[in-house]
């Protein structure tokens, strides 16, 4: 109760409303009016500012829905299952069918895009999680503070570098390196179930699903690593010392103490990172080859919904009926839905981790 009262009391608004004395007494009426107007301007002005993002969000959803509804009607459920994405005969006479005006032969199946989005993000999260957590552990437990600061700067740079720049690096440096050194080695792995995904031909410039996934992993790593690092720093020393006193090695201590402490927070960060990976556009458009087809193996060219929107809009503008643009709006809607689900999931995980601590001890010792 007291806590609640305190948190309410830190706000100017409640103070203003609960005011017992008229604060404007003792000043001239003109000045008093001026002050009251000033108050009103601040409260209503900031209130308007607070409403704007929400209006923007609603506006975006309305715009997308309005644009996409004819496409949803015409494409039907095949949008999710069909693998053919074609604008049809650009010079044909537009026809009306399924309640929408479109070009003859126009067909939109987004399954390759949806599958590509999910596959690349899955690779990204699988690669990024262990690397980010491992780096955070070493950083917190072993390395001196100066190196920690330097690595922190590295993480910030990695998070800040524009995706177009990372994409160019993926094309010119990472892709060729992977195709020359890493992929041949991966292909030589034994053909048993978990490793058999690495079998199949790869293109010599290294542009494809795995390269895209790795680039995405790079973009998630800063988020997960910095979260894991901050959480690991909060683990109470007392609990760690208790583990050491029981004769545990550092590995065992990590598994029993730190891992439980950081678990839900790191999972939340990973899901947020997943959301970012699902929506990454330019880097993916550059390093995956941007082909609107399902990839036959893990190395193949592919594309994601986000990358397809950016690469296909140019040709979609060539559709005089505007139906191609509508279908892209439907794709954008699907992408938005996927990322929203992922984000809601992440927030729920993070919230739960904030409510219940993993260990019953230690919180008081701070």
């Amino acid at each position, binding site marked *: 109760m007291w806590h609640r009262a305190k948190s309410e009391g830190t706000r100017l608004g409640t103070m203003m409303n609960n005011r017992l004395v008229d604060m404007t007494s003792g000043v001239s009426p003109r000045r008093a009016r001026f002050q009251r107007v000033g108050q009103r301007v601040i409260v209503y002005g900031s209130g308007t500012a607070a409403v704007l993002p929400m209006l923007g969000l609603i506006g975006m959803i309305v715009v997308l829905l309005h644009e996409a509804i004819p496409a949803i009607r015409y494409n039907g459920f095949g949008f999710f299952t069909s693998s053919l994405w074609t604008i049809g005969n650009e010079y044909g006479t537009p026809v009306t069918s399924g309640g929408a005006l479109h070009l003859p032969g126009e067909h939109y199946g987004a399954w390759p895009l949806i599958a590509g989005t999910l596959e690349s993000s899955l690779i990204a999260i699988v690669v990024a999680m262990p690397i980010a957590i491992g780096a955070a552990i070493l950083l917190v437990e072993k390395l001196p503070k100066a190196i920690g600061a330097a690595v922190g700067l590295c993480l910030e740079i990695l998070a800040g570098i524009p995706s177009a720049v990372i994409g160019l690096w993926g094309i010119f440096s990472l892709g060729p390196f992977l195709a020359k050194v890493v992929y041949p080695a991966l292909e030589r792995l034994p053909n048993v179930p978990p490793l058999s995904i690495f079998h199949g031909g790869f293109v010599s410039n290294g542009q494809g699903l795995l390269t895209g996934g790795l680039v995405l992993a790079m973009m998630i790593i800063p988020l997960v690593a910095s979260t894991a690092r901050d959480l690991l720093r909060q683990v109470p020393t007392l609990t760690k010392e208790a583990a050491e006193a029981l004769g545990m090695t*550092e590995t065992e201590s990590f598994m029993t103490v730190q891992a439980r402490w950081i678990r839900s927070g790191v999972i939340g960060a990973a899901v947020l990172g997943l959301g970012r990976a699902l929506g990454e556009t330019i880097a993916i458009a550059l390093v995956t080859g941007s082909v609107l087809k399902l990839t036959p193996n893990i190395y193949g060219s592919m594309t994601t919904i986000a990358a397809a*929107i950016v690469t296909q809009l140019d040709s979609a503008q060539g559709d005089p009926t505007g139906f191609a643009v509508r279908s892209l709006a439907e794709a954008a809607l699907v992408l938005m839905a996927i990322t929203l689900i992922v984000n809601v999931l992440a927030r729920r995980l993070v919230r739960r981790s904030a409510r219940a601590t993993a260990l019953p001890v230690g919180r008081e010792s701070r």
Partner: protein
Amino acid sequence: MTLEAILSSAAPSPRLQRERISRRRRAIDRVWWIACALSLFFVVVPVLWVLVSITAKALPHWQWSVFTENSTGVGGGLLNAITGTLVIAIGTAILAGCVGIGCGIYLAEFTPKSAIASVFRGAGETLAGIPSIVFGYCGYLALVVGLHWGFSLLPALIVLSLLVVPYIAKSTEIALHQVPLAYREGGEALGMSMPYLLRKVVLRPALPGILTGIILALAISVGETAPLIYTANFSNSVPSGALIHEPVGYLTYAAYTFYDDPIPAAQHLAADASLILAAMVLGLILLSRLIVRLTQRYAPDRHLRLSRSERRLATKAANGGGPPGR
């Protein structure tokens, strides 16, 4: 052979067994730390690799004329793109800064009920989770085509602002929450009017946090490509200041499209654009670190407003120097 000896050879002594277990545990520990070191390697090396490869690609053909000439589509410089990026980033910072700071102030100070605040906050978080290409596409549909503004500056600014407002609002809100309750009470006890209290007492200590949020917004708007391609498009001339009906060039577009141009001069421009972008982002990161460093150093006198001599007296007193004599 005695019975005892047979038994002891069949089952290892407890001590031996313990030793074997501990050896295994130590081996696991070693593997664990090697794995951790490897993962740190995989975090740091790509960053350095990216920076080195950008520089190595740009430097051999580097010409200072990139800062003075416009791009021509087959070569030239990047003056138009650099100015465009600056105009877009600063315009976004101003627009999103006003909205975001207002939003943060309202959420931290004035929301009548916490339910409303959580709705606004949820909208912000949702907005922050939406991919930037969706913003760009909506801007294209609604502003460029729908309102017939054409590819131009204003749609780009609106779309980017919507994209970064949640970040500014969040950092403003957090910064305001960290300002102690006593400051507001003290201000009120002195009879300050609410606007004055907000301006002089509450916002001042929150300023570094708000600035960090704005720098983050600047970094995002410098680095984004997807929301700009179909709102600002690209132009080979320096922005004239027209808000609508005039495309604007920017660096990320140059990096994204010029790289596979058949003409080498254009390819070099893509490399130059990457280098300039990386330098800009690096500068912004360092700037935000500088702000944090400065506020940490000057934190006590920011809040207490001690003059230098007063501070010296205070430290003397705190060090047990007794009452400061003249």
